[in-house]
């Protein structure tokens, strides 16, 4: 090595990236050349001093200014009703962060609610006129307003039991966004229940959801509207039915109608890219409801449900299926195998049976074990 061009190697030497041979040659040159030795020393000291510069902590005011801009961006997205990426039904969400927290309240001793939600997105503003919010008698009694509907990113989320429910708070801002016409399908699938009861509450969150979860079905629209934190330590006795007269509830109030009655249906709600299914809770009832959903005309739903059934089957430690669970979108003739007969899911091989009949057959079979 010579003086000419030695500077090109300064950083490599300084950073320890020269090969052993090159380092020896470099050092040997410095040993024999006072000018380069001094020059490299100046380089090294300068870079070490440069590295001693330390950026000061971010001032709180700067953080606040940035967060204000980010918050404005977040609200801007809500106002514009952005739908996020196109061409991907499974990820139909705002391109901001999705909020997908939802846990089921612990209900000491009572039957827990299993909530299956098929969803394809994140929080989206929806006019409540598109949601079925009822007073227990089935008649909508809330004036239209816009709330955010939670649409989890996961295709299917089975909410585990014995955990707290956390449902975020409704935003104060009311926005109006045009949304596609809501379809609703109700899959009438009988659910054996213990007692008949109607509970209507209007309080923000805790109890109604607990009671609803404990005693039967909860309309998903109300569940989506209900945003608050559940605290199982504050669980109290059920509320009395709300009087018919009275002012319209405020945005912070929640109306949840829960009904428990013999043979109460499992409700399947479908909105644009968003499906929800509520059952009374155990895998027994979820599976038949899923079976019923194999009749959904949407092949994506069928594929998702098949996957879920497959997963549940594995979780039940059933013997391996001779063939996977299959569904025919919109058609009949679905064959399934029963995990409770020593194989995978119940064999329901009668193509003429409706989903409700097939599920009843499943339930009967299950009960007879």
């Amino acid at each position, binding site marked *: 090595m*010579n003086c000419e061009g030695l*500077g090109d190697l300064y950083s490599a030497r300084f950073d320890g990236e020269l090969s052993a041979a090159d380092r020896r040659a470099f050092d040997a040159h410095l040993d024999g050349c006072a000018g380069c030795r001094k020059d490299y020393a100046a380089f090294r000291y300068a870079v070490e001093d440069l590295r001693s510069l330390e950026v000061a*902590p971010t001032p709180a005011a700067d953080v606040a200014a*940035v967060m204000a801009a*980010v918050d404005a961006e977040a609200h801007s997205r809500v106002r514009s009703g952005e739908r996020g990426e196109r061409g991907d039904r499974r990820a139909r969400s705002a*391109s901001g*962060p999705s*909020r997908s927290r939802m846990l089921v309240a612990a209900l000491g001793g009572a039957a827990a609610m299993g909530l299956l939600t098929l969803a394809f997105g994140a929080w989206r503003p929806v006019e409540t006129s598109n949601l079925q919010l009822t007073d227990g008698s089935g008649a909508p009694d809330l004036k239209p307003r816009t709330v955010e509907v939670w649409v989890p990113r996961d295709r299917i989320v089975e909410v585990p039991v014995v955990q707290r429910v956390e449902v975020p708070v409704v935003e104060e801002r009311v926005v109006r966004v045009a949304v596609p016409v809501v379809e609703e399908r109700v899959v009438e699938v009988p659910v054996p229940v213990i007692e008949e009861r109607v509970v209507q509450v209007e309080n923000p969150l805790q109890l109604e959801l607990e009671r609803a979860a404990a005693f039967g079905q909860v309309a998903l629209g109300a569940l989506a509207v209900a945003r608050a934190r559940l605290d199982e330590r504050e669980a109290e006795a059920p509320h009395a039915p709300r009087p018919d007269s009275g002012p319209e509830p405020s945005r912070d109030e929640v109306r949840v109608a829960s009904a428990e009655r013999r043979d109460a249906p499992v409700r399947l709600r479908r909105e644009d890219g968003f499906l929800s299914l509520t059952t009374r809770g155990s895998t027994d009832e979820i599976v038949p409801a899923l079976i019923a959903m194999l009749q959904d005309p949407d092949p994506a739903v069928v594929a998702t449900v098949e996957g879920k059934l497959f997963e549940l089957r594995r979780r039940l430690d059933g013997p391996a299926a001779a063939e996977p669970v299959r569904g025919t979108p919109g058609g009949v003739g679905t064959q399934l195998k029963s995990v409770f007969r020593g194989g995978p899911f119940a064999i329901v091989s009668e193509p003429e049976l409706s989903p409700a009949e097939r599920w009843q057959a499943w339930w009967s079979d299950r009960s007879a074990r």
Partner: protein
Amino acid sequence: MPQPQTDEALVREAAAGARDAFESLVGRYGSALSSALRKQVPDRHLVDDLAQEVWVRVYRSLARFRAGASFRPWLFSIAFNLVRDVRRSRKWDERTAASEEDFHFPAAPGEYDPRGRVEEQAAIDEALARVPDPFRGAVHLVDVLGLTYLEASESLACSLGTVKSRVNRGRLFFRDHYLKLSGEPEPCPGSGLSGGTA
């Protein structure tokens, strides 16, 4: 004492909607981002605007942050992309034509933690501010902000070899200015800046 969350863990939480996680990232890197932008854009008001725009872009892109990726180079790559866009735009011409000084991008007051070395820091900053583009940005990322060469190459959207070359030349420029400001003798004419690509 609990370990602070990693950047990537904060990104995951922020992507899931945790505002405080995003705020933690802003607090953690706000100054470094502004410092990097100041080495690219002489107009301090524009720097503030750009910094906010970078964070908004980060927020928009949280869901697309790849698992396993590193946040720090991702943040700076967004910043440098924005700087490139701005430099190509009318906004640059309008806001910087009157204020831009060649090869002079000094720090803002309070940008660095002085730690009792005010005069020395002033000389360091002044010397760094005089390092020309594109070497200044590379040196600042690596030697001031502590990015690895790989992270710097990702941030600057150039090859590893290019970044290393830019850092070396930037350091040489820095040394020369620093020596002058410190009243030290000139470097040996045989070494120092030689030919080579940026």
